[in-house]
């Protein structure tokens, strides 16, 4: 109240919700600001409004949420946190440890989240036994996209192993086509890296190396082999890749300049926006190997005390995981619903494949968090690994040296 009074005096121009009305409030910090994504979030706002809530939008795009995290820190330090914040993976736990998250276990119990969400994913949403975040969607990261026509012309199928991929790529080079469309930004290098770790090392190795940070796994010959494959992949990328946005790489696949791209399922949105049809114009398949790398977007609920904001928070949490929002949002976003009981009839074939694979992987412990997208590790460790990966990919560093640097970087980040 004191805060509101001061503001009312000082800032006549500010439109923030100071009026102590009786309607549920929610200020939502997120980084979904472009057309499709923004429309997808707008669905949530409409559902929220239909329940009598008043939504205050606080979008901050950039760097996969870096700028939003800057804003979040400033807000929390100033004692004025938003109601709900787009946060994911271990970052939720990190914020919980700072003691600023709210407990929404009531909502989770009432809505039976325990039953409808896959175990691996709900673990991210819990803080010390209570629920503190609501999952929105599941992006699959280990996707490989391909130009159907280019593949057909060169007699190539979707590769089932990295050897097959390498052989296909050699063929494409001979035909004058860039085998792999890639954008040289650290997170894109890391995205390719984690799919190679999964493909060459398998799910168990992935878990040990990129989740448990097991020293033995990180220093193993398998890891050297992973870097060897990264070096080979570097040869399949055109010279102008540094700094390229991922969507420009997608465009290269679309117009036949390049054959494949390794990228999460948001790339599908680019194909669809250009009027391409999955299965006809472009193909989707998981990258070689088992497992399923997920990137789950979620909203963490910040402690806003009791009152209108708390009420809004509970409604918001309920709506986010609710089946109707899960369906409409994910249709718009290109991802798949987190809950297993949503009908996938309206979804395209790639999304259906993704959902099938997720259920299968969920059963045999192959459902793994993506390291490149901040699901597997805390920021400092994930950043340390991605520094080494990107330095290796963008120089002539040997695999052995990369493995050695990896060990050092992780030790240094602790």
């Amino acid at each position: 109240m004191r805060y509101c009074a001061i503001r009312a005096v000082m800032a006549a121009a500010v439109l923030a919700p100071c009026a102590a009305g009786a309607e549920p409030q929610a200020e939502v910090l997120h980084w979904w600001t472009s057309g499709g994504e923004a429309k997808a979030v707008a669905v949530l706002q409409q559902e929220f409004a239909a329940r009598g809530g008043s939504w205050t939008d606080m979008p901050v795009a950039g760097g996969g949420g870096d700028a939003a995290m800057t804003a979040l820190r400033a807000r929390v330090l100033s004692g004025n946190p938003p109601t709900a914040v787009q946060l994911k993976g271990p970052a939720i736990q990190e914020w919980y440890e700072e003691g600023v998250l709210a407990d929404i276990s009531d909502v989770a119990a009432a809505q039976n989240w325990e039953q409808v969400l896959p175990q691996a994913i709900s673990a991210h949403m819990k803080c010390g036994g209570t629920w503190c975040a609501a999952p929105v969607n599941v992006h699959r990261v280990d996707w490989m996209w391909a130009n159907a026509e280019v593949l057909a012309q060169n007699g190539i199928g979707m590769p089932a192993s990295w050897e097959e991929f390498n052989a296909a790529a050699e063929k494409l080079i001979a035909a004058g086509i860039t085998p792999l469309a890639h954008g040289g930004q650290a997170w894109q290098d890391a995205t390719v890296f984690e799919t190679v770790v999964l493909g060459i090392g398998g799910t168990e190795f992935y878990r040990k190396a990129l989740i448990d940070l097991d020293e033995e796994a990180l220093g193993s010959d398998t890891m050297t082999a992973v870097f060897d494959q990264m070096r080979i992949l570097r040869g399949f990328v055109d010279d102008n890749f540094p700094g390229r946005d991922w969507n420009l790489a997608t465009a290269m696949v679309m117009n036949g300049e390049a054959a494949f791209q390794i990228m999460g399922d948001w790339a599908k949105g680019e194909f669809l926006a250009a009027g391409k049809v999955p299965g006809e114009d472009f193909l989707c398949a998981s990258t070689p190997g088992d497992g399923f790398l997920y990137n789950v977007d979620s909203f963490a609920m910040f402690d806003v005390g009791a009152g209108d904001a708390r009420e809004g928070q509970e409604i918001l949490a309920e709506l986010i995981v609710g089946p109707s929002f899960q369906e409409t949002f994910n249709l718009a976003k290109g991802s798949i619903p987190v809950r297993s009981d949503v009908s996938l009839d309206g979804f395209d074939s790639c999304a259906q494949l993704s959902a099938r694979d997720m259920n299968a992987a969920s059963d045999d412990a192959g459902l793994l968090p993506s390291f490149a997208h901040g699901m597997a590790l805390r920021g400092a460790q994930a950043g340390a690994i991605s520094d080494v990966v990107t330095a290796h990919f963008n120089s002539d560093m040997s695999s052995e040296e990369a493995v050695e640097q990896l060990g050092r970087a992780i030790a240094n980040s602790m």
Partner: protein
Amino acid sequence: MLSWLERQIPKIILAPTFAAVTVFVYGFIAWTAWISLTKSRLLPNYDFAGLIQYRRLFDNPRWDMAMGNLMVFGLLFILLSMVLGLWLAILLDQQIRAEGLIRTIYLYPMALSMIVTGTAWKWMLNPGLGLESLVQRWGFDGFRFDWLVDPDRAIYAIVIAAVWQASGFVMALFLAGLRSVDGEIIKAAQVDGIPDWRIYASIILPSMAPVFMSAFIVLAHLAIKSFDLVVAMTGGGPGYATDLPATYMYAMAFSRGDLGQAASSAMVMMMVIFAIVVPYLYSELRAKHD
């Protein structure tokens, strides 16, 4: 006779600024220094932990790269901006028609934020999209201009864009300097038949020492704070080949939740700034006092 209160007015006027600077500059530096001695992660934590963050910092190859880049970038940026700015100012000082228009064209990059112009530069310097492909399409197949995607040269591409942004401003400083030189001396020299270039070299430029100093300070300040430019053009890449201390610090503090590490890098940066700026301030204030 001035009353006591009246004599205190200058101090009273300066008091709010004094307070603000004490808190918002020196207080915050002290805060950062303390945080650099802790194991702060996501949010500040005030438990003393010794020099561990500095050890981590100097053990990180990325930090070496960032500091090395700052040296290369800072030196080239300041030097090239000065040379180009001075040259443009001299050219513009030759009674040019449409001087106003040309001056505005040289000056406008300073008005735009690099968030904006960085993307355009990124395209132009990308060999596949920009100048290289354009010139090759004109028929010069051998033309290469791929600095931006070459880890060893990308920092020079950043220098180009940075010089583009700041050199117009430096031009304005120098132009103003040229115009404040006493006209009588120049006339006298011209009457004596001394060639133009010698008038510049031995009369005008030496009298502009303070302008060089101002330009240097403005440029040094821009170089140290360079951040948007790198973020927009390369995001620090290829790899982390174009990382600068400011981008390193930002990455540690805000995307990695490693606040202590960020604070230690900030302190090292501050020491570098101190080493550059304090001698300047000292000479500046002494000169004024005489």
